[in-house]
């Protein structure tokens, strides 16, 4: 299978790809539902491209629509690479190259999982919290509108640019991108490990600034007052209680398979009991 760049005469123009990229940026998540997640929107993005490649009314066109209606779910922003690759594969198929329907569907399915994982933890879990905590630092005391404005502008510009870049990169590299992903496991592994490590350290820091739990209970015995928080827990390590809380929640979710809703209720009940008893 040849790389797209080595092929002469592509069927799609730069303008078609630009249009598809905008369509993806605006509509990727627009039809999200429990059954197909992003499936319908994906087909919506692909349709103009498929029409141009196969022609309206042909059987190929109809089959292509059906295969892009299937279940599809990833982190849409980092996942902008995937529709790019898919378009390149459809183009290769329309040119009569040996690209089967299964290969296209399987590539989408194989890529969506990893991109969901990395995208959620890098963009939503790391990048957004970094920007948010910088912005919150600017405005939580005095209500300076610069905080939210700064967050909004930086987030929007960088992430739209990232999606635009990834979408085009996916198309330019075509099946090569998919192949690279499947064959060059060590490189992919290295990138993922590096990003995960960076993310985890930053998440830890942001968590330390937002999760709070403190004991207000003071043990009084005659003249002696012992503040558990100041005289015991803060001496061990400031912020040890919220750290233990976060680790406990992680343990319950990851190892004991508690659902998020159950944890929310658990925390609310725990807080109610602690406040009622005058401990927290």
């Amino acid at each position, binding site marked *: 299978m040849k790389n797209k760049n080595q092929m002469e005469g592509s069927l799609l123009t730069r303008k078609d790809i630009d249009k598809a990229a905008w369509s993806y940026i605006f509509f990727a998540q627009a039809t999200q539902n429990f059954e197909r997640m992003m499936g319908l929107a994906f087909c919506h993005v692909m349709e103009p491209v498929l029409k141009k490649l196969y022609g309206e009314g042909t059987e190929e066109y109809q089959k292509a629509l059906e295969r892009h209606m299937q279940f599809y779910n990833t982190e849409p922003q980092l996942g902008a690479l995937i529709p790019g690759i898919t378009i390149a594969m459809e183009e290769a198929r329309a040119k009569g190259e040996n690209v089967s329907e299964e290969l296209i569907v399987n590539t989408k399915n194989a890529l969506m999982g990893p991109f969901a*994982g990395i995208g959620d933890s890098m963009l939503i879990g790391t990048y957004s919290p970094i920007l948010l905590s910088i912005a919150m630092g600017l405005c939580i005391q005095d209500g300076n509108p610069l*905080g939210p404005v700064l967050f909004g502008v930086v987030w929007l510009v960088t992430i739209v640019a990232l999606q635009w870049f990834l979408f085009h990169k996916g198309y330019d590299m075509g099946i090569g991108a998919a192949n690279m992903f499947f064959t060059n496991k060590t490189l992919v592994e290295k990138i993922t490990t590096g990003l995960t490590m960076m993310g985890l350290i930053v998440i830890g820091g942001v968590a330390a600034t937002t999760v709070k739990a403190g004991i207000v209970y003071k043990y009084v015995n005659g003249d002696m007052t012992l503040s558990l928080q100041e005289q015991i827990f803060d001496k061990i390590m400031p912020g040890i209680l919220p750290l233990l809380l976060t680790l406990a929640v992680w343990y319950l979710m990851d190892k004991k398979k508690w659902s998020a809703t159950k944890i929310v209720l658990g*925390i609310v009940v725990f807080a109610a009991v602690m406040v009622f008893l005058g401990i927290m």
Partner: protein
Amino acid sequence: MTFFQALLIGLFAYLGSKRTPWFFGVTGGWNMIGRPLVAGLIVGLVLGDVRNGVIAGAMVQALFIGQITPGGAMPADVNWAAYVGIPLALAAGGTGEQAVALSVPLSMLGLGLFNFIMTINAYFPHMGDKAAAKGDGRGIHRATYLAAVPSFILRAGSAMLLCYLGTPVAEMLINNMPAGMLHFFEVAGKMLPAIGFAMLLKQSLSKQWMLVLFLLGWVMIGATSMSVTALAIFATAVAIIFVMAQGSAPATVPAPQSTEEEDDCYEE
């Protein structure tokens, strides 16, 4: 709150919900307008109290920072917290603490609405299926556009009605809320962000030893006065050093294994 103000807030609630294509899709909508921090500014502008709006936005944001929605499974509904909790608190004369107190229960109630929309929206792919079977491309687009309708009606409508009708209730609640109750919401609100981070940990920890990195980040910020930006640069350096050290090992395969074992020692 006037009807017009409630209407505007309802519209922004829709623009900041998850299925809006209008403003750069999920990037400009859910992940930007939908963030409580940004909602605080917008609500502040609409209600004419930017300062308190921004403060309330930042305080409610802390509840939901780092919250991811893997597979659409959400721990709490940010949309109602941002576009019902903040405006009601402001309209009732409260600020940050009151916004948090209203946002915590609202975010849990809103989850029902989120799941309801996610469920009824499953109708539209079937419409798309029928169109695809006939090779009707326009039908696909029609189904995509129509999928925005229930989202718009339910998101904009619910936020608008709750803001408009809820103001007297919120005033009554906030003015009569016992100090203990307010304290309870404050305590619960400060512990709730742990869920977002725990979900991130669950998703990010490809190897168990990596938990030490989370602890490292926590201690760096918790025990020194380091800023998050400085920590991000430090974290990048650590990640690069690790990856480079792995890369310089002669054989590609044994290298990751050996480092893994080494780091296991640190964990114990």
